[in-house]
């Protein structure tokens, strides 16, 4: 009997990867999926039916093992009250930040995901995936992590100063607390809608020191991870960029799946997480290899990840598959996963 992508992931998480046909292909598609079905990216971000159509078309063609609801990082930002621009074929972005002054945090209102606009659109995508594929594929919901959302609301430069500036300590913690609470509500609503996995995107965390991560960001991320797991979901952490310096601290945060970008040492990451109950996902270079490389470069890079992880990691590009990636490269990516060593 053919194994389903959901069963493949379950086996990985349960430590039974040995007898699998291959490890999961966890590539993230956003711009690429919209382009693949000839739809403007703006529509992909604002209409769950387009997002679902794009992902369903791609997972079948490119043998990918996950149905993703990812489009852009400013869904919660919009629902918090930030006015966005929606260019036809680019990422939506704030017209101006919602919290130009740190004192504005006190007036920041949380929202009900089921009465929101953009998170509700994501929930609708989850429901449609569930209707179309039920439990054949793992469905990936998404929330922004505490530092990422704080940065979207305050501006990245401001938040990275706030985090270290003693004068703003109390208010910045209040902002992280509010972002965390909202992330928990949004995660729970997506799990109730049928999401199996909730990804927590906290890219800004790669830009801070180990001390700041451990003492300030990690405790909030842990609250989100715990809430996802308590609600019956699989918790996945995605921090793109170089996180070599915080890998050991991420262990204690308790996510089930840890994404690593291409500049992270796969071998070391797998060793650190071995026996912790968490698995690694990554980490082919999305630009130099998947986008710009030949099919043979892609195959070699996938094989290297498989060897370095000793079959204990899901394999994907370190971050989103670029929009104009040659199709033959994604096909080579999927085929390489079947090779045995």
């Amino acid at each position, binding site marked *: 009997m053919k194994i389903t992508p959901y069963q493949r992931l379950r086996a990985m998480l349960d430590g039974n990867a040995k007898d699998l046909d291959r490890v999961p292909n966890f590539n993230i598609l956003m711009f690429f999926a919209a382009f693949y079905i000839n739809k403007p990216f703006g529509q992909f971000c604002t209409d769950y039916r387009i997002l679902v159509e794009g992902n369903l078309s791609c997972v079948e063609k490119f043998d990918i093992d996950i149905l993703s609801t990812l489009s852009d990082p400013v869904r919660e930002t919009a629902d918090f009250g930030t006015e966005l621009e929606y260019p036809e074929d680019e990422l939506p972005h704030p017209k101006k930040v919602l919290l130009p002054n740190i004192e504005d945090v006190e007036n920041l209102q949380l929202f009900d995901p089921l009465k929101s606009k953009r998170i509700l659109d994501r929930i609708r995508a989850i429901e449609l995936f569930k209707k179309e594929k039920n439990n054949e594929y793992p469905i990936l919901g998404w929330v922004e992590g505490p530092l990422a959302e704080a940065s979207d609301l305050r501006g*990245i430069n401001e938040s990275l*100063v706030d985090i270290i500036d003693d004068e703003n300590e109390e208010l910045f913690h209040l902002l992280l607390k509010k972002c965390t609470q909202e992330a928990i509500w949004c995660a729970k609503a997506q799990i109730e809608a049928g999401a199996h996995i909730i990804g927590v995107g906290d890219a800004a965390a790669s830009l801070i*020191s180990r001390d*700041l991560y451990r003492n300030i960001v990690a405790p909030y991320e842990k609250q989100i991870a715990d809430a996802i797991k308590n609600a019956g979901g699989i918790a996945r952490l995605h921090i793109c960029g170089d996180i070599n310096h915080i890998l050991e601290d991420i262990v204690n945060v308790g996510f089930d799946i840890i994404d690593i970008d291409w500049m992270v040492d796969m071998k070391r990451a797998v060793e650190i997480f071995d026996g912790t109950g968490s698995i690694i996902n990554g980490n082919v270079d999305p630009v130099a290899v998947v*986008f710009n490389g030949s099919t043979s470069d892609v195959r070699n890079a996938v094989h290297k990840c498989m060897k370095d992880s000793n079959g204990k990691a899901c394999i994907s590009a370190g971050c989103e598959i*670029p929009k*104009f990636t040659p199709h033959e490269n994604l096909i080579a990516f999927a085929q390489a996963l079947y090779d045995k060593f």
Partner: protein
Amino acid sequence: MTDLNLLYEAILKGKKKTAIELTNAALEEKADPKSLIDNHMIKAMEEVGRQFENHEIFVPELLMAGRAMKASLNILQPVLQGQGAGVSIGKVVIGTVKGDLHDIGKNLVASMLEGCGFEVIDIGIDMDSAKFVEAIREHKANILGLSALLTTTMPYMKTVIEALKEAGLRDQVKVIVGGAPVSQSFATEIGADGYSDTANSAVTKVKDLLGIL
């Protein structure tokens, strides 16, 4: 007498208030502003760059140091201008190319360049080629820094370089490019003069291109 090592330390540690107090105190004691900049403040930013490159400090610390540096420079610049002296060792126009809204990398490079003695004109994000050409013409910059984080926007760097050629400005300005998906081979392919993958190496590259090293 103000201990100027403390000014170095204040900038290195990103202590803006202390840096302002020490700069004002040094000026009251008739310290030479050019010497303060060259021998203490730029040295601090060079050390910040070194520590950043070696992963001893990270972006927040670098931003705080840049903020302290800028606060002190804002006090010293009017004094230097009053003396008829300039502080800049070169003029840089920097921006993120059209369709791309990312600015953290660009800001880090701008901050390091400013901290190391360059005048930096940051024209912002999502900038089309006409804006870059206009800025180069207006500010008579020696260097143009182009930033992109997306694979969909990095090809626009070539459009900007072509626009500089059409405007007859290409020979007057050196172009450096950077951003996560950008590489040396891409820089060479589009005809840029330089590439750097960190804020610190951007400073070295700019100095190199201007023959300052």
